[in-house]
């Protein structure tokens, strides 16, 4: 991609975040990105702007303001009622071309990981996927003789190669610097009731064409499962649990200790556990106070989603299981015997208090 010259680069200012909403309710990632955007904007001495796209969504602007947005750009159009790549990509790309942000953050959700690449290709800039750390710094990180070291660049860190490595990426010669950010990693700010933002309405016009797909049906999994990303204690099971039936044992442990169950990808595939309970690279990133890994071997893709937990307790029959490499407490043994006993002992310990 041709590099922008200094004059062109300087036209791009401010940190923008895509404030994802579904069914006119803001997603958790919207607040996380406003929080992270605020942190980056402070370092750059600029403001954070939330881009709110949907139909009849203007009412959500105040909520974004209370969580830290300085400005909210609202693109409101009946065509934007439900997420579809095309009208949403047109909306976000038009905002970028009109307002020229230096940083554009999008959630690495099932929506953002479709919207982000489409928009980055349309506005002709780079995109770094699934970031877990964002910093402002120099590029190249260490000066190279004869090469300009650019200041105040967005340095985007992400796991790569299945979580085996981490890479830090910059986009020094094109704007905006775009990243998708993994949900559950960045911190939202404390809500400040009554805080206001400047609200700007912008509509680039929407004319359906061959790229507008038709929605035939929308199906929501009816679920009363609480989000595992909010849990303080997770009791997580893997293939070693043996059957869907055996997960009851884990539920009893979770109930005793005031936690919630989650699982590995293997348990989703083998025992039909709900995908929203899945922890890992293709599931959710969690960082509870306590993470029980029960019958989970600890494939790198799983570990990538839970290694930030404060305390990891692993129970596995295989003493060479890689989960023991990240566990604070590793117990080699038969989970079928240990888990019920543990539930009993925890109940007794709590009752004795």
């Amino acid at each position, binding site marked *: 991609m041709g590099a922008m010259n200094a004059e062109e680069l300087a036209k791009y200012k401010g940190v923008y975040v895509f404030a994802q909403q579904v069914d006119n309710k803001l997603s958790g990632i919207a607040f996380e990105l406003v929080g992270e955007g605020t942190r980056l904007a402070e370092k750059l001495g600029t403001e954070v702007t939330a881009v709110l796209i949907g139909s009849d969504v203007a009412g959500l602007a105040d909520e974004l303001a209370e969580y830290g947005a300085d400005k909210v750009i609202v693109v409101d159009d009946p065509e934007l009622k439900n997420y579809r790549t095309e009208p949403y990509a047109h909306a976000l790309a038009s905002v970028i071309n009109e307002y020229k942000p230096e940083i554009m953050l999008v959630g690495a959700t099932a929506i953002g990981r479709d919207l982000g*690449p489409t928009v980055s*290709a349309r506005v002709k800039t780079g995109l770094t996927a*699934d970031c877990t750390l964002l910093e402002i710094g120099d590029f190249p990180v260490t000066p190279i003789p004869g090469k300009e070291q650019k200041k105040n660049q967005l340095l985007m860190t992400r796991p*790569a190669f299945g979580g085996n490595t981490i890479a*830090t990426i910059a986009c020094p010669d094109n704007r905006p610097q775009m990243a998708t950010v993994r949900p559950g990693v960045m911190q939202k700010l404390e809500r400040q009731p009554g805080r206001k933002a400047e609200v700007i309405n912008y509509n680039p016009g929407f004319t359906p064409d061959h*790229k507008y797909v*038709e929605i035939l049906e929308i199906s929501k999994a009816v679920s009363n499962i609480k989000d595992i990303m909010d849990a303080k204690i997770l009791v997580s099971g893997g293939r070693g649990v043996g059957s869907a039936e055996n997960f009851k044992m884990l539920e009893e442990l979770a109930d005793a200790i005031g936690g919630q169950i989650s699982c590995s990808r293997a348990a989703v595939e083998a025992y039909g556990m709900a995908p*929203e309970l899945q922890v890992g690279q293709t599931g959710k990133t969690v960082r509870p106070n306590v993470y029980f890994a029960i019958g989970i071997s600890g494939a790198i893709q799983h570990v990538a989603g839970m290694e930030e937990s404060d305390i990891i307790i692993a129970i596995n029959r295989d003493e060479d299981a890689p989960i023991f490499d990240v566990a604070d407490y590793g117990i080699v043994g038969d989970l079928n015997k240990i888990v019920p006993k543990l539930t009993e002992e925890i109940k007794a310990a709590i009752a004795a208090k």
Partner: protein
Amino acid sequence: MKIVVCIKQVPDTKGGVQFNPDGTLNRAAMLTIMNPDDKAGLEAALRIKDETGAEVTVVTMGLPKAADVLREAMAMGADKGVLITDRVLGGADTWATSTTIAGALRGMEYDLIITGRQAIDGDTAQVGPQIAEHLNLPVISYAQDIKVEGDSVVVKRQYEDGYHMLKVQMPCLITALSELNEPRYMTPGGIFDACDAEITTLGRADLIDVDDSNIGLMGSPTKIARASDKVRKGAGEKFVPDSADEAAKIIVDALKTKHII
């Protein structure tokens, strides 16, 4: 009907990974497999072929040895293989990769393009939608099911909390999830034929409407600032208790020490 499936030969990330001094991946040093999401996309295409007699062409971009993954796809049932390979294309990020593949696709006939959602080496999920954008095609990502209905495709599009059934007119691009199906095995006859099958090789000069500034390492807007093996916090204590009672005691004591219970 003509279907193009974009597939990638990826390092099996279950093994270790190795880097070149410039921070890019040393693909030559690692064991490789067909990327799982791509394989599901190929299987979806082959099922459409089984039903309708569609022609399936597999395309990959990589080192010359990436021809192996094309032969594997042809042994499964793909009709043609196209390898995009050229030294000047190396070190490409998703932008430069997608402009390159789009440049090759401009010279091919297709009604439907299928890519995997993401490759297990980069996990970006970007190249599929970016190819669609360069070719001005509609895109549907995260397909859990793909059905051809006349000149349209009906796709079950996955979200975190459910799915949308979407209908789109061909030509279009769909990105496939590995959950889509269980890919078939190569057949002995297929393997035999694939060994001798001709693979079309495309180089830089064969790409249509692609500027030099959009290919390879130089044409990549994203640059690697740092790359490293992940530093993990390391193992804690490991116990091999004699009984479930002892195991439970170890855990309960730990939870008490940490003031969890």
